[in-house]
């Protein structure tokens, strides 16, 4: 491992100042579970880690009926799964956090880190592959092994976004507070992630020195039903092959408004707009959900080894919507 210095940030502004100078040679350290893996694989070689955990108060979770849910970026995934307000009012978020990896990693890993985690693509993670995402010229998945890669919005890089929490937060229409040297702004999660066609070297809009300072989830209508369904190749713990985050505003049998975000299929958490439009304003039936699932995957273009993701995604999407709507499968 290349030598690096370790710096305890005094406060947010201090962290931002230190992270902004040095041309990206400093990396923000939260739980470290993703970053340390990258450093160990030697394709990320920072000169300095800026420990954010030395900043107080960034791990708070609070809820009020008027303001909704406010989560500090350093709240651990375990804390998300155990929070009473989240379990009650945002059950899909508790489910999504619980589905992440192992107890050990949920105990260290933070929600901010989970949203910003880097892809699991084996070429990206392999030191010996100078892939596009590591500023090289090739996406090795195109002619290589691509069983776990994307079926929507691919090219020139074909990663999938690995977060479980991000699709569910997006389904609940969360917004992120982002702070950098030029000040603080709030971004809808729908506008936070970046497709490889726009920039294939990063997954989100954060610039060097910018940090997520808060995750704000609006209050949900009382008849909102949310759930997160994840299909893993290995049952005990794994990243999603595909997942569906669903939040339905119900009105009796009918779905007033659907919010559906898919994981494991695209380089970003993928909002299934076509499926939402089919469900909006209608009674949820097996037949309608079938149509919505077909529409969501109509543009899918699989690679050599991942065509299986199309029927799998349709099934997971259908099951998630039916479960949220309380319609028996």
């Amino acid at each position, binding site marked *: *491992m*290349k*030598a*690096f*210095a*370790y*710096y305890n940030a005094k406060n947010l502004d201090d962290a931002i100042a230190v992270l902004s100078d040095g041309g990206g040679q400093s990396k923000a*350290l939260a739980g*470290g*579970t993703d970053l*340390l*893996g990258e450093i*160990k694989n030697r394709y990320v070689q920072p*000169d*300095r*880690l800026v*420990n954010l*955990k030395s900043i107080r108060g960034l791990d708070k979770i609070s809820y009020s009926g008027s303001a909704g849910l406010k989560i500090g970026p350093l709240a651990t995934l*375990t804390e998300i799964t155990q929070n009473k307000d989240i379990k009650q009012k945002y059950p899909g978020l508790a489910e999504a956090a619980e589905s992440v*990896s*192992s*107890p*050990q*990693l949920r*105990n*260290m890993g933070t929600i901010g880190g989970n949203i910003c985690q880097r892809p699991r693509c084996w070429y990206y993670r392999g030191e010996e592959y100078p892939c596009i995402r590591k500023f090289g010229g090739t996406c090795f998945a195109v002619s290589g092994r691509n069983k776990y890669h994307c079926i929507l919005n691919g090219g020139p890089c074909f990663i999938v976004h690995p977060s479980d929490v991000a699709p569910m937060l997006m389904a609940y229409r969360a917004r992120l507070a982002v702070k950098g040297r030029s000040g603080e702004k709030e971004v809808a999660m729908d506008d936070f992630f970046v497709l490889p066609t726009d920039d294939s070297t990063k997954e989100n809009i954060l610039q060097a020195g910018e940090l997520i300072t808060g995750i704000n989830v609006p209050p949900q209508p009382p008849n909102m039903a949310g759930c997160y369904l994840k299909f893993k190749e290995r049952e*005990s*713990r794994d990243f999603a092959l595909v997942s569906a985050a669903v939040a339905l505003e119900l009105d009796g049998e009918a779905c007033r408004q659907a919010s559906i975000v898919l994981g494991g299929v695209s380089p970003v958490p993928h909002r299934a707009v076509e499926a939402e439009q089919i469900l909006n304003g209608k009674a949820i039936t097996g037949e309608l959900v079938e149509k919505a699932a077909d529409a969501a995957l109509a543009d899918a273009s699989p690679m050599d080894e991942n065509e299986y993701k199309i029927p799998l995604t349709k099934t997971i999407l259908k099951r998630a919507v039916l479960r949220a709507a309380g319609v028996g499968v």
Partner: protein
Amino acid sequence: MTKDKNKTLLSMKVNGKPLEVMVNPTWTLLRVLREELRLTGTKKGCEQGDCGLCTVILDGKAVNACLVLALQAESKEIETIEGLGKEDNLHPLQKSFIENGAVQCGFCTPGILMSAEALLRKNPKPSVDEIRIGISGNLCRCTGYSKIIKAINAVTKK
């Protein structure tokens, strides 16, 4: 600010004892436990957070010591397998593992015991499913897990 190559003083509590040790910023907690403190009961496997061999308890929670930088443990309380029981005074989980044949090669055992201990402290009467989730971050290549689950379950019934 710490400079490259310069070691930094780390203070933490290990198995109840406060101690100080000079560490390099790049060292993991696992390395400090095994190589500086010679607490080699905590095993080293994948070093990527996959196998759980390195599981220790940090401020009451199970973590992978291979994915915690030593300096992240500043002022924290660490518990390792060495603190769980002694040869002449085994912890109930250790006894149960022996009684239930939950140990074969034994390489995964320290990590699984620490995961089980962290689970039982929070949830003294876990269901079998909760036990499965509790040890889902630990790989065992010998036992097939069923005896391990049985051994943990047996402790909760006492």
